[in-house]
Every structure is written in C-alpha cells, then in structure tokens.
C-alpha cells in the first residue's frame, strides 16, 4: 500500500470543491461581483470535480478501495458514486440560484460558498471511515445547510425554516453523537474498518448491544433523511427555504444521510451480523411503511407546490428505506439506483418550480394553470418527471421502484410491498393535481403577460429530464455501477 498521506490525490474532487470556495471569495474580493461570472467559476469548479469523481470511480485502485489519512477516509466506488450524485445536485442548485429571484445579487457569492461547503461536507461524509470523521463531515454539512435554509433573511418563512432546521438539526446530531460514542465504547475503536472484525470476534458479547447505538445514530440520520417519525420539520423547512435550496435538500442531504446509513449498516458490520441484529429489519420495514404513508397522505391536500414536493420527498425517503430494510446487497443496490433516478427526477421537477417562481412569484398549484400551453417544453418535462416520481414506465423512477420492490419481495416482506404499492397509487393523485393545473386548465389572464422561459432553464430542464427517460429504457449500465459500488462497500 502507498503511504497514506500520498493518497491525498484521490481526494481531488474534494480539493477542487474546497478550492472553488476560496477562488469565489478571492475573486469577489478582487472585485468580481457579477453573478454571472461567479456562477461560471463555481460551475467550472463543480464540473471539474465531477469529472475527477467519474475518473476515480473507474480507476482500478479505487475499485480495490484506497485508504487515506491512516484510515480516516476511504475512496471506493461507493463513495465516488455518491460524490457524483452530490456534485450533480449541487450543480443543479448553483444553476438554479444563478437565475433565481429569491437570492439577491450581492449575497449570491456567500450563498454559493455555503452551498459548496455543504457539498464538501457531504463528499467527506461519503468517504469517512472513522466515526470522528463521520461526525466532523456531518457537522460541516449540517452547519452550512442551516444557513442555507434561512438564507432569505427578510422572509419570515425562511427565517422560520432556518430556525427550525437548526433546532432539530442540533438535537439530532447530538443524539447521533451519543450513538457514535456508544459504538466506540462497545467496540473500542473509531475505525469503521475495524468494527466488523471486532464484532466478528468470538468474545464480542452480543449483537443486541449494538441495537441501541445504531438506533441513536439512525435517529440522527432520520432527521437528515426525513424519516417518520423524524420528518415533521421537513415540510416547513422545505417550504420556507429558497427554492434552489429546497431542491438541493430534497436530494443532496437525503443522499448523504443514506450514504452514511448504508455504510454503517452494510459497510461497518458484516452483512450476516447486520441481519442478525434482532428487530433491525422489521423495525426499518415498519418505519419505511409509515414514512411513505405519512408523506403521501399529507401531500394529498397541499396547495403549495414546494410543500407538496416536500411531503413527496418524505414519501420517497420511505421507498428508499424499504430497500434499506431488507438489509442485503440487492436492497442496497436498489436504494442506490433509486437515489439516482430520484435525483434526476426531483431536480428536474424542481427546475420547473424554480423557473415558474421566477416568472410568477407563485408556488401555488392552483395559480399555475395552463402552463402546458405557455411553456410546452417545461411542462412536458414536468410531466415526465412527475410520472417518474409516481413510478410509471418508461422512466427511471419506475426502474428504481422495480428494483426496490423486487428486493422487498425477494426478501419476503409482502405486506411492506403491498403498502408500497398502495402508496404508489395514492401518490399518483397529488402528482396529477399538478398535471391537472398545467394541462387541463386554461392559463389565467395575468399569467400570459410574463415573458418567455429563459433559454437556460429550458436547457437545464431538458438535460435533467433526458436521463430520466434514458435510464427508464437502458438502465443496465447504471445498475452495474450501483452493484460495483455496493460490492465495494460490503465489509468482508
């Protein structure tokens, strides 16, 4: 093995993201206040980071897992895949905010720095192999995201969102920290790589003991991913935050939470140990069922499109949790695939919301009527995204659901599968309310006055929707990547 310190070059994507923050501040200090320029800079940084994440994903050394900093971090296909995911969603958020009317010109640079701060935190989190590092990167992600949630200071809703997010976030990370420290106490190591070996030893008393720390950590993550019963902050925060942030939260932080959850459950303990923890699977299955049911039922009557998508995000967390609950490789692969599908889909849908908000300053479903006529391309893409969120073929969302359901049925959780299926039907109703407004109703007179959709948004919407369709028809390559990632994750 190469000396740990020298492996730092595998963290190139992280360095680039952190460097971009510095470059942004410096260029601002040197007088570049133009939002356009700054956006170009951060997009450049993110795209380069994305490029290197993709490159490292395929690097043979990475497939064999590269340890960095004496085991603090580990670069493997699992972490790289998640980094790609984070970077794409950040990229989308940066592009949203570049044209967003919610984030004012002067402070756009700061906003962007915080966004990149969250991203770098998430990227480190995906690579963390040490409980200390886990907590550090988790906090780095959280602290920046609190600021983002409350970014529009003048807006009471945003302030409320920021405040709520801080309070719940602080409590949850405290609980998680307690869980992590209990884990350390039980296993005597912070190194997640060693934990599997320790638990496998004959003298390790009982896997029962792990249930408590894992539950506490799960509570902490549950807040981030918005699982039932830790979901109640999500609608307020999602509604109050500036829309680009909402889009980012609903994908990025959720993915980060799931990355850690998967690594803890499948990467830290060996699979048969995880499966041997009593009740773990059943408990997760129960929470999954509750999460999606609560999310979907609450979404039914929402008039605010952001709030509706917030509840839908909760429901999707439930679907993903279904895949986690089976506690096996197939389930984890399904979750990863689902996450990818969900990312493109949800970001695509949010792009339309952002673009329409910029034009009309409205996020009420009933006010956005007749959009199908005014903005044909955006509306068709929205339709595709909503179908994908519902899980109808031929979209990526369907394939994601297929994998999750397949894993669940294979495991024999028939009731869970049934609940999931019923939820799919329920979710259709509220997604179609948006379609109803867009297509079945005529545009309001005052809506006709708004100018055309900026070309950039059209490009963004289309480029997020095209993958939704492509992965709905030829998805096997993406699935292979998910498999590679999961197999690199599994502790041996």
């Amino acid at each position: 093995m190469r000396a740990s310190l020298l492996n730092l070059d595998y963290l190139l994507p992280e360095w680039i993201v952190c460097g971009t923050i510095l470059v942004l501040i410096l260029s601002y200090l040197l007088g570049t206040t133009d939002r356009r320029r700054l956006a170009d800079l951060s997009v450049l940084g993110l795209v380069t980071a994305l490029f290197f994440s993709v490159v490292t994903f395929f690097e043979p050394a990475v497939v064999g897992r590269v340890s960095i900093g004496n085991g603090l971090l580990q670069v493997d296909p699992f972490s790289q895949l998640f980094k790609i995911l984070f970077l794409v969603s950040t990229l989308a958020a940066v592009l949203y905010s570049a044209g967003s009317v919610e984030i004012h010109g002067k402070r756009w640079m700061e906003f962007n720095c915080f966004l990149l701060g969250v991203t770098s935190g998430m990227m480190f989190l995906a690579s963390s192999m040490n409980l200390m590092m886990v907590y550090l990167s988790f906090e780095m992600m959280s602290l920046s995201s609190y600021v983002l949630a409350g970014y529009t200071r003048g807006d009471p809703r945003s302030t409320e969102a920021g405040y709520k997010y801080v309070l719940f976030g602080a409590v949850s990370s405290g609980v998680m920290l307690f869980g992590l420290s209990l884990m350390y106490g039980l296993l005597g190591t912070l190194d997640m790589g060693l934990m599997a070996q320790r638990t496998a030893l004959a003298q390790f008393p009982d896997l029962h003991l792990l249930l408590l720390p894992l539950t506490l950590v799960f509570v902490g993550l549950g807040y981030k991913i918005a699982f039932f019963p830790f979901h109640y902050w999500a609608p307020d925060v999602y509604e109050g935050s500036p829309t680009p942030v909402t889009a980012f939260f609903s994908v990025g932080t959720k993915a980060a939470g799931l990355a850690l959850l998967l690594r803890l459950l499948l990467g830290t303990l060996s699979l048969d140990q995880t499966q041997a923890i009593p009740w773990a699977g059943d408990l997760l299955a129960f929470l999954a069922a509750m999460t999606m049911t609560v999310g979907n039922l609450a979404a039914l009557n929402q008039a605010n499109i952001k709030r509706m998508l917030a509840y839908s995000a909760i429901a999707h967390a439930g679907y993903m949790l279904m895949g986690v609950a089976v506690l096996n490789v197939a389930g984890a692969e399904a979750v990863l695939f689902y996450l990818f599908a969900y990312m493109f889909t949800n970001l695509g849908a949010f792009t339309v919301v952002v673009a329409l908000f910029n034009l009309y300053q409205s996020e009420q479903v009933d006010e956005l009527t007749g959009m199908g006529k005014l903005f044909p391309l955006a509306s068709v893409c929205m339709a595709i995204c909503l179908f994908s969120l519902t899980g109808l073929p031929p979209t990526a969302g369907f394939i994601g659901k297929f994998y999750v359901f397949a894993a669940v049925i294979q495991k024999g959780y028939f009731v869970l599968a049934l609940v999931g299926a019923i939820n799919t039907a329920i979710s259709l109703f509220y997604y179609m309310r948006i379609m109803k407004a867009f297509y079945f109703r005529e545009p309001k007179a005052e809506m006709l006055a708004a100018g055309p959709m900026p070309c950039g948004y059209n490009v963004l919407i289309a480029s997020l929707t095209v993958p939704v369709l492509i992965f709905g028809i030829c998805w096997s390559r993406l699935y292979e990547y998910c498999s590679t990632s999961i197999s690199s994750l599994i502790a041996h």
Partner: protein
Amino acid sequence: MGSYLLTLMIFVPLLGAIAVLCVPSREEKVLKTVAASAAAVPLALAVLLFMQFDRGSTAMQFVERAPWLPAFNIEYYIGVDGLSVPMVLLTALLSFICTLASWNIEKGLKGYMALFLLLETGMMGTFCALDFFLFYVFWEVMLLPMYFLIGIWGGPRREYAAIKFFLYTLAGSVLLFLGIIGLYFWTTPHTFDIVRLAEIGKTRPQEWNPPFQWLVFIAFYIAFAIKVPVFPFHTWLPDAHVEAPTAVSVILAGVLLKMGTYGILRFNYPIFPEAAQFLAIPMAVLAFINMVYGALVAMAQTDLKKLVAYSSISHMGFVMLGIAAATVPGNPGAAAAVNGGVLQMFNHGCVTAMLFLLVGVIYDRAHHRDIYGFGGLAQVMPTYTGFVTLAFFAALGLPGLSSFISEALVFIGSFQAFMTITILGTAAIVLGAAYMLWTLQRVFLGEVNAKYAALPDLSPREIFCLTPLAVIVVILGLYPSPVLDLMNPSLTHLLTFFW
C-alpha cells in the same frame, strides 16, 4: 424469425408521434396527414399479419427476442398467437379510424395526435409482449396518454373522469406489478418469460403452492377486472367514456376493455389453471352481474353516450361468462365458450366503436346527447339512421350480424357449465334489445324535432370511418370463420391446460 413486422407495428406510431411533434402546429393539414399515415402503416402491417399468420399452429409466431436487462432476465420478447392477432387487428383498425375521426379536434391538434399515436404504441405493445416486464411497461405507457386525452380534450367533468380512470387503473396495475415480481422470484430460474411461465402452469402446476397461487391469481384478476371492468370495479367506466372525446371513447371501449379479458386469458389461465378452475363459479357470477346489471343501468340512462357505456359493461359480461365457462372440467362446450368469448371481444370492439362514433356524430351536430331531446332524426339524416340501426341491431345480437354468433357461442358453451347463470343471463339479451330499441324509437322515429330539422347528414369522412366497421359486422355475422379459424387452435390449446 427474422421478421420485424411486430416491432414495426409497435414503433411506427411512436415515430409518427415524434414526427407529429416536429411539424409546426399551424400546418394542420400536414399534421393530420402525418398522423393518419403513421396509423395506416400498422393497419397495413396488421392485415399482412392476418394473411401470413399460420392458422394451424398453436405456437407463438412472428417472435422477436433480444436481451434487454440480462441480469434480471428481462427481454424484449414479442410474438403473437391466435389470441392476440384479432386484438392487434382490432387495435390497428380502430386506431386508424380514430385518427380520421378526430380530424375535427380544434384545440391542440398536435398534442392530441402525438398522444394518440403514443397510445397506439402502448396498445400494440401490450398485445404483442411475451415478456411480463415488457408487458407491464406497455400496459402503463398506455395509461399516460389516455389520462391526458381524457383530461384535456374531454367533456365538462373531464378532470374528475381522467383522474378516476387513472387511479383505478393504476391501483390495479401496482397489484399486477407486485404479482409479476412475486412470480419472477418464485420460479427457478427466475423468469419473466410468459411462455415459460405458462409451461410451468401446464406441466408442473404443483410448483405454485396454494397461498401463493391464490394471491397472485387474485392480484392479476383484480388488475384485469378493473380494466374490463368487472362489477365492483366498474365505476370509472361511465365517467371516462362519457367525458372522453369520441375517438378516445372508441379506443377505450373498443380496445382497452379487451385488455382486461385478454390479460385473464393470457396470464391468469395458462399460468394458474388450478386457481382459474377453482374460481370459475365466482367469476361466472361476476360475469352475470355485469351482463344484467349493465343492461339494467343502461336502460335507465337518458344520455346516449352513457347508455352505450353501460351497454359495454353488459357486453363485456358475455366475454367474462364465456371465458369462465371454458375452465369448468368436463364442459363439452368449453371450446365454444372460449371461442365465443374471444370472438365477442373482437365483435364488441367493432360494434361499440361504431356506436361511439355515431354518438360522436350527433353530438358534434346537436351539442347534446339527451335521448329525449331528439326525435324523428330518421327523416333528417337517413344515412346516419341506417348506420345507427345496423349498429344497434348488431349490439342487441340480431342473427346475421356479428355479435349474434359470439353471444350464441358463449351461451352454448356456458349452458352445461353454469345452467342457472346462463338461463338468467339471457335476460341481458332481452334487456339489451329493450333499451336499444327504445332508444332507436325515441331518437329516430316519431315527430321531427323542429330544432334539429336542418341537421346535415353524414359527411364523406364519417362514412369512410364507419363503413369498414359496418362491413366487418355484416361479414362476420354471415361468415365468422376467418376470425374463428385464426383463434381456434390457440384457444383449444389453452383448454388443454385445464384437462
């Protein structure tokens, strides 16, 4: 092998849809021409298929298969047998006619045509798919355009009707989906291959243990029953049919309803013959309820389109009865029953399409469909009246017209299996005759309603749409063997699953 006939048939409409989207919406003529030619190609191919189909064989023909997702054994696997060819033919014919029938759509013609062609792709794919996963994909793809077609171009309550249709069908589909995945993992090696699954059903039905078999059978049955629609699940139908624009009603009643019964024959029966046999009586009872209840409710309608919609429920009951009777052990009329059932699917498709087209014609002119609001139209619109009379008589099962043959076959076949139900079920025919004739009398005979004295008769385009259907109705009434010969071997083969 080596023929891409089916693939072409499935995907030409999709290409047509894309082409339609590329045409600027001002060029209505071009739009219509592109759409009609994109729908004409599958029709031509379907006729070719009808000619080339080997009537002696029970195997799948025109098979094409290519791996799609090898890791899950998902294939692009399509083919047709005697059960699907009539359905494919029906789909191609009705789709073509409907593109012509929708030429007077005013708003958003481009979107309409594109969605319509997408719908055709979905329907064709559903009838041709031999891989369960592929089938499901097409099955759902069909839903999406349907939702928009009803919701955007429908009548006053279109939003309600569209979402109701969508929710009902999706609720069924997700059950179907779970069933498909369950079935996949139950088999070793895991497979979505319908032919293989049917083989297991035939040779080793003991491989499905009872609770599993029941669960999946019922999940499938509910999914398909919603589509048919079978009695407790039927409430979406009147709403959807009434609110949908004419051409969409035609497709809904003419093709989509058949998918339910097609699904039962294609999946439930061959894969789970034991469960099918065991549940024959409940299925027959539901069929009976459909027949009589549909007819009774139809009789109470004042809206012409609703009447036709409920008559569809009643007529689909005949199909259900026929296929239920086919599974009863020792029923000497099983072959007649199942042949009658499938023939009834085809015939009902043609007849009901005619009926909806005709209702659309009068609605276009008078802007209402109240049965009591007309009167004496026979004098005003003689050609129209001629077509309506033919369609009504066909629907009520007049000998010499197509439905008579299929209904007679169904009753012959089911008589020995469910004597009581069959005897009571004939009431549906009487009721059918009653409401059809009454309607005929109220709308076309009697005093000429002054308001409608100047209604123009059928236009050449409308006649062009209706004539092929009328010809089929008459020909199949006199000489049904072209279609019967086509499906008989496959259906007889299906019966061997039960004995």
